[in-house]
């Protein structure tokens, strides 16, 4: 009797497992076909020397990775991407948080502001790049500055600040970073605003009763309650900023020497400029792994902070 019961139990367990498995199967299939297989294929190509067309792919082992480790330009591009990310993490997210805090209060035209702040992320990156290229244009015609920024700097008497913004190594990357932050702050704004709205208002009232001022309430109530959202915003900002490249292409074309080079433009350059597909794949694998490590590190930090 008990044997029959155990048997029917295990059959039902298998049935349950199969049912559960059939639910996740489509997702697993899609993930395997579109993510896992391409990743392994790219890794496979990164071990070869290939020009992208020829049927001859020469196996060279880890030579591409070895070369990559010594490729100064690749690490310069990483450094540039880190700079853009740093600006985005500070300037972009501070702006997003400030605006989210402002919009979280009862104010006139609150909905209008929400829409306006979300316009930049909706715009095409290439269009944003070209618009800012025009704003930062350093050209002159008939004694008048063509670029909007230089035109107004000149008009309001700040002639000494008129500058060749995109062709000077000191300012080109900073301009790209600022434009990237301007374009991206809307995402952070929406997420932070949503996070702020989930905080129980009673907590603020309790803080008020305890005599806490605005800053104390912010640091002791708002920030701790917002940590999970802030971490998500930080991770998305890092991933988005490290992978920036359309803005770079539209603002400085093929780059200003190597001062505006970022990892994706290097990968593109290796694929279409020098036709080294294997090397480009090695760059892709290396870059992907770095981003995975960064995301994983933030996940660990996030979990620890939640526990605390």
């Amino acid at each position, binding site marked *: 009797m008990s044997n029959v019961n155990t048997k029917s139990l295990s059959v039902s367990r298998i049935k349950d497992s199969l049912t559960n498995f059939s639910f996740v199967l489509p997702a697993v299939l899609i993930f395997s076909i579109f993510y896992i297989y391409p990743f392994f294929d790219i890794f496979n190509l990164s071990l070869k020397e290939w*020009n992208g067309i020829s049927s001859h792919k020469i196996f060279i082992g880890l030579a591409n990775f070895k070369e990559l480790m010594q490729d100064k330009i690749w690490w310069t591009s990483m450094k540039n991407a880190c700079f853009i990310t740093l600006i985005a993490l500070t300037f972009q997210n501070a702006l997003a948080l400030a605006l989210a805090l402002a919009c979280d209060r009862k104010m006139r035209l609150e909905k209008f502001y929400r829409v306006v702040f979300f316009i930049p992320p909706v715009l095409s990156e290439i269009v944003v790049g070209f618009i800012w290229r025009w704003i930062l*244009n350093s*050209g002159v*015609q*008939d004694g008048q500055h063509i670029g909007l920024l230089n035109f107004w700097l000149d008009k309001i008497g700040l002639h000494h600040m008129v500058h060749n913004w995109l062709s000077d*190594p000191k300012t080109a990357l900073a301009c790209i970073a600022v434009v990237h932050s301007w374009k991206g702050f809307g995402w952070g704004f929406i997420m932070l605003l949503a996070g702020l709205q989930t905080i129980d208002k009673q907590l603020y009232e309790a803080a008020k009763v305890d005599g806490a001022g605005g800053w104390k309430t912010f640091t002791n109530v708002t920030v701790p309650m917002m940590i999970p959202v802030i971490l998500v915003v930080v991770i998305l900002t890092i991933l988005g900023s490290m992978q920036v490249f359309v803005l770079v292409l539209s603002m400085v*074309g*093929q780059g200003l*020497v190597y001062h505006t080079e970022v990892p994706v433009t290097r990968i593109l350059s290796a694929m279409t400029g020098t*036709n080294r597909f294997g090397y480009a794949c090695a760059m892709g694998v290396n870059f992907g792994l770095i981003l995975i490590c960064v995301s994983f590190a933030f996940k660990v930090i996030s979990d620890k902070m939640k526990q605390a």
Partner: protein
Amino acid sequence: MNKLLGIVLCGLLLSGCFMKQEDNNTITLWHWMTDRQKAFEELARRYEEQTGVKVKVDLYAPPDAYTQRIVASAQSHVLPDIYGILDKKKIYASFIESGLVADLTNEFQKDNAEWEKSLFSKALDVNRFEEGNVYGVKPGIYGVPLDVTNIQMLYNKKLLQKAGIMHPPKSFDEFLEDIKALKRVGISGVVSGWGELWMADCFASNYAFNIMGEEKIMATYRGEVPYTDPDWIKVFGVFKLLKEGGALIEGIVTKPNKEAEQDFALERAAFAFNGSWCVNVYHDMNPDLEYGAMLPPSINADLPMKIWGGAGSSFVANNNSPRKDMAVAFLKWLSAKEQQAYLAMETRNLPANREALSSIPEILSDFAKVMENTTHPTIWERNEEPLVVEAFDKGIQSIIIGEKTPEQVAQDVQEVKEREMKKLLK
């Protein structure tokens, strides 16, 4: 009932996905030339009227995106019947070696080589692989040129007159004097799209030919002459002279060519460095622009100034297409006198067919006159390694922004060259 309808619809959708549409009377052509789409469609209409064969003309722009599409299609074996290869000769050779391009040599040489003779030889050279070529490709002609082009300097007649300059400069010293005169009246000197590195590379190559000649350039590519040679330093020095003379428009190093074309068309600079395709572009931007074409002012009177030129755009026939013969017949028709004259008139480009030259605008004749001075990397005995080219072009940018001296750049380029030579020896 709804379930049944759903299944039928899914079935129809899936069958649509897996059914291969093969219309044996339609040939497909992929191109990248936004300004020629209408003209191509009109020619396709005429061809269908004359032969009954339909030509589907698909445009994929800009050229970079087109190149990526062609490479991806080649990898997945879904290339159209007719397409263009916008890449280095080495990559052209890879397409041929992979069996993706039809050999047209026999077609060109039929009837006492009538087809071959009707086209500019400089234009055909881009599509020709000579006996013993370094790419190891079977000698022959593999593509059909559609037009010829060359890259020169252009001058704005009105702006030069405003600065009291009566004729365009012939020598480099005269050019620098003209720049001074232009600066005195607040006019910028040279504009070009050097944000697209190949254009700066092309300008440097013109002066390399003028300063040291082809043999020494090839010797450098072979690794026999270093980039630290005084002649190469002189080539890099041209950019220093231009920078110090204030000849270059602000922001030239990151300027895309489209913006540079706009600057010249809107009379923001007196000189431009651009290709013959600009005639059409300038006409659209400013039909009243008065300008002429000239060779870049020479530094060395003993050697000719060689400019880049040859086939502007070429098409190849897909060797694996079941409609290969139809594709070749269409290309032959497209390069015939009548069609070439129509294209030249509509798109203001220099025709590849010599017989169609009589119907071109005057400014294009200026470009056509110097076709004999043209050369192009695709017809050189060998090309420089891509990483060396990158270091060379980025070095030019460094000189223009005042970051490095010609000597430092020469040293940097030589280091990359030596590294690449070592790799080749391995």
